[in-house]
């Protein structure tokens, strides 16, 4: 079953940054890219279950705050050691001022 849920307001996320969003016992990360698109992934790094929301976004890469594991947040692709497992990504949609994500 898939469902669109309201994650945040557009203004909650700075450009080239991310925030944490918790829903139904799961944690997600909502990103706003430098070209002003919104993306969503799992909120925890696939290496050591660390919240990515404290990590650094540079262009389209999120870097885990603990061991610098890197992912392309548009595709969830792991970009090398110490991370080798990709992040799950989720579709996003912006309506008026609200960002929705489609959770599985």
């Amino acid at each position, binding site marked *: 079953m898939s469902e669109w849920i309201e994650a945040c307001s557009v203004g909650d996320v700075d450009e080239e940054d991310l925030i944490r969003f918790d829903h139904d016992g799961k944690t997600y990360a909502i990103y706003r890219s430098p070209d002003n698109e919104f993306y969503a992934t799992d909120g925890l790094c696939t290496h050591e279950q660390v919240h990515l929301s*404290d*990590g*650094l976004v*540079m262009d389209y890469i999120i870097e885990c705050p603990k061991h610098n594991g890197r992912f392309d947040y548009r595709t969830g692709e792991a970009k090398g050691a110490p991370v080798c497992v990709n992040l799950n990504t989720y579709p996003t949609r912006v309506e008026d001022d609200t960002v929705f994500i489609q959770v599985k």
Partner: protein
Amino acid sequence: MKVPGIVIVGTGECGTHAAFALREYGYEGAVTLIGDEPHLPYERPPLSKSTESSPKFVAELQAFHAANINFIPGVSVHKIERHTQAVILEDGRAIPYNKLLLATGAFPKLFPGMEGAQPFRTLEDAQVVHSQLVPGTHLIVVGGGFIGLELAAAARIAGAEVTVIEATDQVMSRVVPEQIATVAEAEHRERGVSFFFGSGVVSATENEVVLFDGQIVSGDLVVAGIGVLPNIALAKAADLAVNNGITVDSCFTTTDANIFAAGDCCNFPYRGQRVRLESWRAAHDHAKHVAAAMLGRKDPYDVVPWFWSDQYDLTLQVAGLPRTAGQLVRRDVGDNAFIVFEQDDKGAVVAAAGIGTGNAVAKDIRLSEMLIGMGKAVEAAALADPAINLKKLLRG
């Protein structure tokens, strides 16, 4: 006779990662990884951060097979024979090499008179200590550095009483500014840790420490966390240059062009000074660089050092190398988390240390690392202002 390949001595973080990096970079010759520890390579950072003794492995046996790395644990190297290009193991085996990497790490320092204290470096050390950290026991830690304080925190969480004895007047004085040390110390006191500062140790047995002023501190277990010394014996015996570590150039080459050294055991050039780092991240960064260097890469290593420590819910991160002569600038990033930058006389950031709950300082320290790497002069006022994104300084 077998065709020689690359031999790596030391199955720690650096040696192990270098072995895999060689394969990653397409090297197809023989790779042999030898070490005296009997285990699969394991991560050391968690050992002092909790009382959980089951190791976290850096690589499983299957990964060695898959990468065709000849992994020889539990055997010491007796000597390096430079004229035949072979390492001789303690059991007499000779393993030839084209290139040799010494990633021999470091061993815990113990001052004369402290021989009875428990060192803390290996999985076995950790298991001895962890098994005794139960409610009602009293742990005495000599040394208020990262390892000592992490262990103090883990012991308090496990319910043991803890006393920390520090020779200087500040915890972690080697790596963090006073403002940060004060926060960490206050947290430890709040959690019930007792401290002795400015107290040199005359002697230590397994359960008692005698201080310079004659005071005796007794407990159930004395652990020494006063630093480490590089394992240089093999290099020295092979007439390689050593000076606080095995001397290497910016490509981790020793004074023998076919022998390299990296990780905790090496002394390498960093921005006009020579340094030796004891750091998980440096072990990784060195491993990658030296693997490429052994395959012919010539560009110099220039990675900004980075350290971290976890104590209770606090995380400390440090980027760069503090010089103690620079100007300090504080940036408050919310929730009592803050960063102290050190700038040189031209305004370039040379070090940044932060403390906060969880990963509160991680992002800014990561950006600081990049700022330090760039070496560009920045305004102190901008560093101090949390409303100014460090990213902007980096790109501006």
